[in-house]
């Protein structure tokens, strides 16, 4: 058994300097964050806060499973689904309309302007849109629908514009050369090419919007969230617990359904 030479010891350490620097940088950022927020983790995990936490959790059980209340939850769930479905549908329509100028079909100036609009629509969170729409349209699910539609048209518009730009131009060009109006050439040649993609994007966004629609009610935009906010503000914990369980079930079911559909598509589509 020999011993390691100095050169070997140095080589052993020579492992990716910038990896270590990155790790160090991230560690400093995380540490700064905790320090800045002055969140004291040890006090959060102390026995005292643990027992008060346990008391807090116990207040939520057992959940209220009364028939009357369950009917209200069912209504809230349907409202949530309706908000998400309608919001996504409106967004898909608006997305197609905005995607045309954003893909540069009506000149460069409009392209830049539409892209800015799309970026703005998608960078404002759904919940902020909801708070604004409550002012514009009053409390209730309609405000939530509009909020989802606004944010989602920003997202879908960008995705649709990308598919439009990537679609092969030859089929439409063949039609316009044959004398068809550009709008008709688009409808007959380009749209069928990208429709499956548009549908897939919209369905994927709908899935995310269902999750989002459950919380829009916190600012008064309808659905399960509005019920939860209301019950919690009245300190009705058992009722709140049932609503949270309903949200959980909704999210889990949507998750499972979309996984199932994706698996089936993969099998049939090859």
């Amino acid at each position, binding site marked *: 058994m020999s011993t390691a030479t100095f050169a070997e010891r140095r080589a052993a350490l020579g492992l990716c300097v910038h990896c270590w620097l990155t790790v160090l940088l991230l560690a400093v950022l995380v540490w700064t964050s905790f320090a800045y927020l002055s*969140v004291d983790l040890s006090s959060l995990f102390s026995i005292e806060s643990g027992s008060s936490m346990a008391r*807090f959790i116990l207040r939520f059980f057992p959940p209220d499973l009364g028939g009357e209340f369950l009917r209200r939850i069912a209504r809230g769930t349907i409202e949530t689904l309706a908000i998400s479905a309608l919001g996504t549908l409106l967004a898909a329509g608006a997305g197609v309309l905005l995607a045309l100028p954003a893909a540069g079909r009506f000149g460069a100036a409009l392209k830049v302007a539409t892209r800015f609009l799309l970026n703005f629509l998608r960078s*404002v969170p759904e919940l902020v849109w909801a708070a604004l729409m409550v*002012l*514009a349209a009053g409390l209730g699910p309609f405000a939530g629908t509009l909020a989802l539609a606004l944010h989602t048209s920003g997202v879908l518009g960008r995705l649709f514009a990308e598919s439009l730009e990537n679609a092969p131009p030859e089929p439409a060009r063949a039609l316009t050369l044959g004398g068809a109006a550009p709008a008709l050439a688009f409808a007959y040649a380009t749209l069928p090419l990208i429709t499956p993609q548009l549908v897939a994007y919209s369905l994927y966004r709908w899935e995310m919007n269902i999750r989002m629609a459950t919380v829009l009610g916190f600012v008064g935009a309808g659905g399960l*969230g509005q019920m939860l906010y209301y019950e919690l503000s009245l300190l009705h914990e058992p009722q709140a617990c049932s609503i949270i369980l309903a949200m959980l079930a909704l999210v889990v079911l949507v998750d499972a359904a979309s996984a199932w559909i994706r698996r089936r598509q993969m099998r049939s589509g090859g």
Partner: protein
Amino acid sequence: MPSGFRPQRDPDALRRAGWALAALLVLWPILRVAEFNPADLFDARNLEVMGGFLGQFFPPNLSIDFLALALKATMETLAMATAGTALAMLLAAPLGLMLSHSLSISRIGPGPGRGAGRASRALVRGVLLVLRGIPELVWALLMVRAFGLGPAAGVIAIALTYGGMLGKVYSEILESGDTRPARELLESGSGRLMAFFYGLLPGAGQELASYTIYRWECAVRASVVMGFVGAGGLGQLMDQSMKMLNGGEVSTMLAIFLLLVLLADAFSVFLRKLLA
């Protein structure tokens, strides 16, 4: 075409009409439930409120006092996302390792402790499902009740939801790559933690890191709105300004949102390049 036949109809016509009718039948109740009523937008009272509010958007409030307040809230938002993601990682790493089949010692053979292994994996899967199935804003609302107002509630809310998401994705990443190195180490008597570090991490580390950074980016977006339920950050400021119908402040803050999201995008691209 032989004469005597009626001119042929589009064989799909009937089916298409049926689908269109069905779509309308579904759409109608949806419109009703969602209380879809565009006229609301043009209701005189709403128009007045919104008009006055939008009128104040220009000029945006750029006073030093307000900008200082907004800067502080922005820092708080970023810190909340970063601290929350760090805690989520701490929560997700052990759960993800426990869930991963490729690190199961009892599956070799199969050997002793197989039932316990299966039971613990099922339990972990259930915990992760509950953590990520409840939206982060609901967790935040609950944490505000438990810990009081402030960013601590937001940090914990992000840690819980994102811990659930990260844990699931971590275990998927660990299973999708080349798992044979870890399996070989387990077969020569190594423990599961070291089998992970020596067998899986070299291959999967980059993907794990890049997914975590992606989640951090999502956490920034999430923590922007945490304040609407009282969990600190920009959202709280936004909530106050909106309740006071102060358009100038709101327009400034919308611009900050835009900048923040773009910056988080750019920073996460930069970090991912650094790790590559």
